Every structure is written in C-alpha cells, then in structure tokens.
C-alpha cells in the first residue's frame, strides 16, 4: 500500500513535471530556431544591423532601423493615448464609482481585450481610417499644422491610425493592472488623507503616488503588448519602410514586415534579416515582460503580478 502510493506519486509528479518542462522546451526551441536562422545576417552585419536605415532586399541591403522606428513610435503613440485614459478609468472604477456601476463598466472594458486583432484591423480600415482622413486629420492640420508631426498627405493610412488602434487594444490591459494596483493600496491611506481634509481628488493623487511603480509596471506591460501586435497594425499602418516625422505618413513595424514578407523571402540573407528582427522583437518582449512583472510585484504582490503577465 505504502509502496504503491509512492510509485503513484512518482508517476504523477513526473507527468506534471514533463508538462511544465514542455513550456521551457518550447521557448528554448523558439529561441534556438531564431538564433540559428539569423546567423547569416548576424555574422555579416553584426550589431550595426539595428541602426542601418537602408532596406532593399533586392540589393542585399538590410537595415532594421525603419522597422524599429515604426515599432517604437507606434507603441509610444499608443501609450500616450492609452495611459491617461486607462488611469482615468481605473481611478473612476476603484476610487469613485459605486460598485453597481463599476462592475459592468469594468467588464465592458475587459471585453475590449477579447476582440481579435484582425477585427480591429477591419474596423480600422473601414471606420477609423476614413474618420482620420475626413475629420480628425483636417482638424489637426488646421489647428496644429505648424508641427511637423501633423504635416503631409492625409490618406488615413499611417502611423497615427496604427497608434490609435494599438491604444484601443492596450487600454483594457493597462486599466486592469492599474485597477489591481490601486486596490492593493491599503484603505488606511485614503482614510488618513480624507481625515486631514484632502478632497477626493487629492486623496486619489496620494494613492496614485504610492502606487507609482505598479502603474509604471502597467505602462510597461502595455508597451509589451503594443510592440508585438501584428494584424491590426499591418492592416492600417501603410507598410512602408521609412522614417518620417509626420504621423500621417505610412510606417512599418517589425511584426508587420514579418507578416508581409516571411512567406516570400526566398533568399537566405533576406530570410535571415527578417528572423533577426523577430529575434530582436522576442528579446524586447522578454525584457519588457520581466520588467513589468517586477514593477507590478513591488506594489500589488505576487498574486496580482502573475495574473496579468
């Protein structure tokens, strides 16, 4: 009896161990595949690949800069839009709204995260792009046209459209994390501030201040989502490898050039250049996710950090 139970324990544990280890093996295999496939460009161009700005596969010129630029700028744009809104929503839900209202609103915002990327792309092509071309763009150009970022042709397809779509997509994630972070701040802090005569908003500011590193974690996590987003962005960003000051001009991201060209990159060096960019994207998301986890953990504790990463 006792023997069979130890045997059972061993078998059970081994099966579970194998399943858990499979995750490790998958990630190791993905990483190995990418390093191996990107060897040709790694050896030929070295680290300079990252800031070379010429991209011309037919002449074997491979510079990742336009794609890195597009990825970074579209993601930052998304954060600039999404973070204030997410903070507002989270504060409203945690600090102000009665539970009866907060719950359904929180749920509806979570639903935004459930909508597939390709659906945002479809909506972007037929609703958002025309809206930017016909309404938002002209308004921005009429009032702020002296800024280089708002100059140029208005096609509705470009960096701004990509950034706005990304902002909608990351808002629910940033909101959810900020909510958890705020909920983790002890109520005694609020009570103390209110007792000292602070207004509700001033109290909120104090709470936000104390949760700052967790909020930073939420922002970094949003960034992690934005840099890897593929379909919605590729459908509206214009897929042109260029570095332009104007937000109305087309751009390109790493994920979208992979989607567009992986299937037809026959040349070894071309394929290698694409996969090296995928490797860069992979490493960046690993670092970003790790950082976000640390930041959130410092405020909300283990349980919450694990919930969102």
């Amino acid at each position, binding site marked *: 009896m006792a023997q069979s*139970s130890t045997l*059972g*324990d061993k078998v*059970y*544990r081994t099966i*579970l161990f194998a*399943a*858990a280890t499979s*995750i490790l093996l*998958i*990630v190791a*295999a*993905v990483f190995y595949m990418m390093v191996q496939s990107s060897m040709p460009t790694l050896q030929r161009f070295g680290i300079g690949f990252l800031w070379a700005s010429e991209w011309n596969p037919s002449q074997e010129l491979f510079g990742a800069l336009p794609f890195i630029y597009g990825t970074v700028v579209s993601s930052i744009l998304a954060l600039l839009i999404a973070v204030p*809104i*997410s903070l*507002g*929503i989270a504060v409203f*839900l945690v*600090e*102000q*709204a009665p539970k009866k209202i907060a719950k359904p609103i929180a*749920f*509806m915002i*979570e*639903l*935004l995260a*459930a*909508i*597939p*990327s*390709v*659906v*945002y*792309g*479809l909506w972007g*092509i*037929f609703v958002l792009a025309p809206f930017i071309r016909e309404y938002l763009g002209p308004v921005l150009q009429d009032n702020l046209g002296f800024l280089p970022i708002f100059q140029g042709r208005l096609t509705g397809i470009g960096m701004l459209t990509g950034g706005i779509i990304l902002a*909608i997509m990351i*808002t629910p994630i940033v909101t959810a994390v900020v909510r958890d972070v705020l909920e983790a701040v002890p109520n005694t802090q609020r009570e103390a501030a209110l007792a000292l005569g602070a*207004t*509700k*908003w001033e109290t*909120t500011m104090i709470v936000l201040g104390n949760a700052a590193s967790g909020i930073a974690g939420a922002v970094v996590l949003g960034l*992690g*989502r934005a840099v*890897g987003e*593929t*379909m919605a962005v590729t*459908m509206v960003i214009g897929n042109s490898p260029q570095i332009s000051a104007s937000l109305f001009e087309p751009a390109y991201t790493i*994920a979208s050039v*992979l989607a567009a060209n*992986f*299937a037809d990159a026959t040349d070894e060096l071309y394929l290698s250049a694409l996969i090296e960019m995928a490797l860069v994207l*992979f490493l960046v*998301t*690993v670092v970003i996710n*790790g950082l976000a*986890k640390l930041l959130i953990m410092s405020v909300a504790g283990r*349980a919450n950090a*694990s919930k969102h990463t």
Partner: protein
Amino acid sequence: MAEAATVHSKRRIINLVMTSLTAVCAVFATSVLLIIIGFIAYQGISSLSWEFLTDTPKPVGEGGGIGNAIVGSAMMTLLAAAIGLPVGIAAGVYLAEFGKNWYGNTIRFIADTLIGVPSIIIGIFIYTVVVMPMGRQSGLAGGLALAIIMIPIVARTTEEMINLVPNSMREGALALGAPQWRVSWNIVLPAATSGIATGAMLAIARITGETAPLLFTALNSRFYNFFYDQPMSSLTVQIYNFATGPFEVEHAMAWAATLLLVGFILVINIAVRYLTRKKY
C-alpha cells in the same frame, strides 16, 4: 480668510473637474466598445444567410460563403484545445503543487514570457519545425501553433485557481493517509474545476481569434476539409483577406464573418462572467 475660501473653492473645482474627467474616460472607453460592436452587428447582419454559413468561397461575384472557414477554425481550435488543455493544466498543477522552488519560478517566468511572445513568431517557428519537414501547410500546423499559444495561458490560470483551494482540504486528506497524487487528483483538482474550466474557455475564445500564427502554417483553402494534413481555411484569415481586398461583396462577407467570430467570443466571455459572478 477670503483667500482661504478661494483656495478652498479652487481645490473643490479641481476635484470636480478631475473626478468628472475620470468618468468621461470610462464612458469613452465603453462607448468605443459599443461603437465597434454596434458597427459589426449593423454591417454584418445583412450578409448572414444560410448559403453564407454553409457554402465555400466562389469566384468574386458568384456568391459563396465561409462554411469551410467555420469548420477549419473549429477543427484547429479543437486540436489546439486537445493538446493545450491537458498539457497546460498539468503544467499548472505542477506549478501549484510542486513549483514553490527555483525550478517552478523559472517555469513561471518562462511561461509568462511565452504569453508575451508575439504570435507571428510562433507561426514562423511552426513553419520551420512542422511545415517544412511535413512538406505542406496544414490544419495540424495551424492547430499546433494555436496550442503553443494556449499552453502557458492555461498553465498560469490553472495554477492560480488551484492556489485558491483552501489548504485545509489538502491537509485533511493527507492526514487521513491518502497519497499526495490522490489528494491532488481527487480533492484539489475537483475543487478547482470551475475555475480551470473558466480559464480554459477564455483561452479557447482567445485562440479562436488568432490570425498571425495561421498565415504561414494553415495557409488557406477554398474547400471543406476534414483532415488535419491539408491546408485549412479559418475565419480570421478569411476576414483578413476579405478586408484588405477591394471587393465590396467581400467586405460585406468580412463583416458577417466578424459578427460570427466576435459573437462567439463575446458569448463565451459573457457566459463565463455570468456563471462565475458569485466569485468576484
């Protein structure tokens, strides 16, 4: 005294403005959701028909439908679930029961990393290790790509759900002399089933909406296909092709297919929320 009053009212005004602004943010975000869903429903409903739901694609202008894409999406999701759920749940149980050490922490971090890896990279990986050796794009490759996306999600939610099971249940059984695996399998897991099922349903909803990992793995097909070794159509890839093309009939089909897809995903999300509402 008067100065104090103005400072006071200034503070009150700021308070009022800022607290209303937060409400505006919430209203704004919820209206974006409603606008998107409303648009999908409005545009999609007019193209839904029996023919659309059951037919295969035809040359532009001759009608056709997305029946094969529905079947393809369902089959690849099923395959992904058949692999992803057992592996993911087992990994989650490991993390919860035996993972309070350096190895568990490593796996936890790696799993979170895998969740954050852009899904297009998973597609490229599967292309290299499955499509190339097999010599064919296939539903199998598509399903495997989706399974890889699913495993870490399921593992992490499973772990979380098991952690919610009170330790007293475990201790009671162990005290009665039951072996650890029996306690885990017959007592802890059943207690966490509803939570694990919730996570599983949400993970299924999530992978049904994936497009990028299918582009190079499952490709697309114009026919009904009930075998995993052939290229397979999916709702998401069809939506992508329809949406980026020029044809108005295809745009209409894209909206209708989207209505179907988003409908499915929202129904799962809402059902899960309704069934688990007591817990939150």
